[in-house]
């Protein structure tokens, strides 16, 4: 120790002349950093109530609760996160995981509220707070910072040049690794379950893929859907359109994952896996008209309940529109057979080539059976009724598609014009394009529709693939007349379509008559929707049935008509699509069981 050691510490006195460093009024003068994790904000119009925030919260501080003014609808659970600041640790994981990006943290950290002891538990965005308009705070940090993959695992498909002249299935299906990688993306919010007409247990079967327990997965599929091979290929996937991942990335490939489970389970094992080897019969009989999705679905669930089921089918093979409406390159016939054969193996009978109302009357069915389910579908084509549409070379897409399935000859020409913008129009366009390629070596087909490209009802991938196969898709035109010279079709006159629907969203197309165009072609195919044929219901029965607007039969929630023994479902009630048919059939089966046992 030296004198220096005694004196040097006193140099600290030098600080006495320095400016003080204290912030005098930190409450008012010190905002949080731009990235500060302060109080929660939620854009409730963007939020879909998927519950990922609730799931990831390490402290169970978040509960999803119904909120006044927000309705439950497809793609929105109607719930919003309520945050308990007695538990929250402001880690911001809820923000990082948010599927829509609606939940953020403001950089506000001071909150003084008097008189309300429960104020610390609030629903951001709904309960107004002073920091709601604060723009700074914790957001998703930077691109590539994601808690799950936003991009889909790419599905392998046949190249256009390998598929454009044959009906081989285009989509190749997932491998195990691909399926598990895709299944890993699921956040298990269940928004899809509500949107699926059949309310399939989607997160549960996707979890079964992750756990590699495909037998359990098949069980979950068959709980609500007895046609998984079919739905796994051509379902309209309402689940994917609402998938919460789709808000910032690509929605989960739910359809392909379903197909993966069905593909991986061999059909001969189905009875063992699904434990349907011994079903006790209950001695009651049900007749089903039409072996389409709704009929088959009803048959399956009725068979499980022990009913003796007989299906009356007009065509030589079962499947209805799935077989006779959807081209083979989307849905191969052997896959249809796999699903149907399993249903038949449960003791369901099908009487083919039988027209109810002709070969057998509805009255007879009523007498012989305890209940009847009718799922006869929409098999009548609709005409545009423009001048010249009664020409013999103007066809309905439905009749052509069914001819292709049956292998019947089509009077194919070199130049074809298709009218329609839905998936059926794409189906017929792409089928005819394949036949043209086979017959003439080139494709000359123009598909036109009222709807413009942005509101085209067909799936985007259908349009893209059709173009890849050299079909010309030219939307936004209204058909005016078929140009016929010397009895031969020369083409289609169209005018520009300005709008399809009016303000109340009713069908009321408006045209610009001056903007004309001519599509050259020697064959016209109309594909603008289908109609139903319920002529099999005799007049005396009809009088006991209540009809709603546009000739639709009125049914209750079990698809029971006002004639108590008759249940009606499928496309003629709801749709047109396969999954609604399946859901209707399932519900009707439960309704029939209820009707016959109570």
């Amino acid at each position, binding site marked *: *120790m030296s004198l*220096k*050691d*005694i004196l*040097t*510490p006193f*140099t*600290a006195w030098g600080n006495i002349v320095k400016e003080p*460093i204290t912030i005098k009024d930190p409450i008012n003068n010190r905002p*949080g*950093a*731009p*990235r*500060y*994790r302060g109080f929660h904000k939620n854009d409730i119009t963007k939020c879909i109530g998927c519950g*990922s925030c609730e*799931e*990831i919260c*390490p*402290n169970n501080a978040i509960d999803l609760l119904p909120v006044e003014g927000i309705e439950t609808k497809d793609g929105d659970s109607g719930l919003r996160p309520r945050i308990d600041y007695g538990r929250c*640790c*402001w*880690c*911001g*994981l809820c923000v*990082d*995981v948010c599927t829509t990006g609606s939940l953020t*943290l403001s950089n506000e950290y001071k909150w003084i509220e008097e008189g309300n002891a429960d104020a610390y538990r609030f629903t951001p965005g709904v309960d107004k707070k002073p920091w709601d308009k604060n723009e700074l705070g*914790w957001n998703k*940090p*930077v691109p*590539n*910072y*994601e*808690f*799950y*993959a936003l991009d889909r695992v790419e599905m392998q498909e046949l190249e256009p040049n390998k598929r454009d002249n044959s009906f081989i299935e285009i989509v190749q299906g997932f491998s195990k690794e691909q399926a598990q990688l895709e299944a*890993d*993306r*699921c*956040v*298990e919010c269940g928004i899809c379950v509500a949107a699926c007409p059949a309310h399939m247990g989607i997160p549960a079967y996707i*979890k079964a893929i*992750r756990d590699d327990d495909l037998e359990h997965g098949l069980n979950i599929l068959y709980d609500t859907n007895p046609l998984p091979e079919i739905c796994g290929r051509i379902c309209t996937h309402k689940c994917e359109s609402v998938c919460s991942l789709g808000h910032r990335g690509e929605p989960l490939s739910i359809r392909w994952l379903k197909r993966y489970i069905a593909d991986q389970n061999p059909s001969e094992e189905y009875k063992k896996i699904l434990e349907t080897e011994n079903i006790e019969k209950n001695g009651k009989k049900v007749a089903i008209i039409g072996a389409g999705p709704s009929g088959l679905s009803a048959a399956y669930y009725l068979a499980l309940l022990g009913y003796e089921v007989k299906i009356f089918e007009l065509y030589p093979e079962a499947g209805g529109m799935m077989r006779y409406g959807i081209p083979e390159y989307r849905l191969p016939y052997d896959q249809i057979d796999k699903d149907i054969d399993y249903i038949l193996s449960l003791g369901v009978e099908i009487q083919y080539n039988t027209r109810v109302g002709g070969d057998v009357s509805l009255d007879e069915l009523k007498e012989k059976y305890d209940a009847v389910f009718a799922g006869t579908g929409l098999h009548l084509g609709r005409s545009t009724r423009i001048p010249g549409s009664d020409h013999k070379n103007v066809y309905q897409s439905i009749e052509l598609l069914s001819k292709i399935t049956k292998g019947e000859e089509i009077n194919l020409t070199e130049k074809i014009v298709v009218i329609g913008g839905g998936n059926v129009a794409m189906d017929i366009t792409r089928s005819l394009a394949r036949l043209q390629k086979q017959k003439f070596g080139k494709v000359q087909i123009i598909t036109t529709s009222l709807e413009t490209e942005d509101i085209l009802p067909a799936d985007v991938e259908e349009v893209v693939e059709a173009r890849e196969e050299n079909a010309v898709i030219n939307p936004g035109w209204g058909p005016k007349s078929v140009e016929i010279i010397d009895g031969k079709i020369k083409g289609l006159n169209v005018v520009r379509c300005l709008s399809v629907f009016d303000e109340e969203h009713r069908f009321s197309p408006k045209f610009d008559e001056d903007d004309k165009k001519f599509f050259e072609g020697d064959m016209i195919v109309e594909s603008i929707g289908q109609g139903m044929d319920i002529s099999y219901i005799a007049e005396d029965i009809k009088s006991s049935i209540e009809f709603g607007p546009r000739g639709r039969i009125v049914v209750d929630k079990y698809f029971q008509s006002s004639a108590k023994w008759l249940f009606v479902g499928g496309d003629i009630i709801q749709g047109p699509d396969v999954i609604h048919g399946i859901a209707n059939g399932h519900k009707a089966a439960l309704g029939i069981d209820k009707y016959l046992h109570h």
Partner: protein
Amino acid sequence: MKKNSKLIWTPDRSKFPEQNSDGSLDVDLASQKYVKVWQGPNHPGVTGNMSLELTICGDEIVQAKTHVGYLHRGFEKLIERRKFIQGFTTCIRMCVAEPDTNEYNFSRCVEELSGIEVPEMANWLRALALEMARLQMLLRIVPGQGNTTGLGLGVQWGVYLRDLILDRFEELTGGRVYHMYITPGGVRGLLPDGFKQRMEDALKKIDEFIVDITKLMYNNAVFKKRTVGVGYLDPAWIDKFGVVGPNARAAGFKRDVRKDYPYLIYDKLDYEPFTATDSDIYTRSLVRREDLRTTVELIRQIMAKMPKTGNIRAQTPNVLHWKIPKGETYVRCESSRGEYGYYMVTDGSEFPRRVNLRGPSYVHAVSLLEKLLVGANIADVSSMMVSLGTCPPEIER
């Protein structure tokens, strides 16, 4: 440092009981020569609570026993009930003063067990966060040593400077105390605009602080008298007890995880750990001051050498159902108190089977402190605790 033998304080042990052959003591309280007192559980300069049961003879300590149990919160157990992505928000609470080392170790364990490579940018940012954490801890503990001898001014300087580092933490990570920046898979943000300049401004102030605190504390007759030669840690005990970090470096052992087992990007940085040999309170404090200097230098190097931008997160499995195959691992890093390790066992489920923290304080403040205190003066207990780098929260997890 030159030792002044006149300053070395030697206790008068004539009144102490004779040691038994196994080293134990028979203290007869009825003799009225001894008194038992409790010190703690609150201590100046130490984060968290911990008690010492002291048997004193006069004002000299004959026996010391550490008592913990004031803080036990069961965080290791809580982590077993949290998914891998959630764990890092809990583990930080195991050492309040330096949470980032916990974040890093936990995340690294998860990454090693699931075989994830973290992008390089994230590694640089992690190293920056770890050094900043060491820096703010040292800014408490260096002047805190003075506080235990009644020198409060240095602490006020330290708290101000630590606040500047917390400000930088706030803009980088969004949090001041619990940063929750290093997640399994990467980090949560790039450097904000202008960060480097603001950091440099703070570092300059710390450079000045080192000069000032040296004048105030290290060249201070009172401080020297209270610390030089006190709390001598025998180098023979270093390996016996498993002493790490500054305490080992003050005894001549060059122990530094960053040098011995380089992790993150430390092999790309140029520095030499400071060692000394006197192994008393003063030297340990001196080593910490040099650590502070090194850390400032390392932060400058990291900011100069780090890439401008890059990916900050590896693609992990979906965090909501992240499963890790069966396995176990031990991960360590250099905290301000020395080697700080995490042992994690996984069993193939979505939750860790076991997470165990091996913190330096367990050795320093429980087994070592009990030995060092024997013969010390009651007034030196808190100096001794601070000089060993005691952090009770990491003792009881």
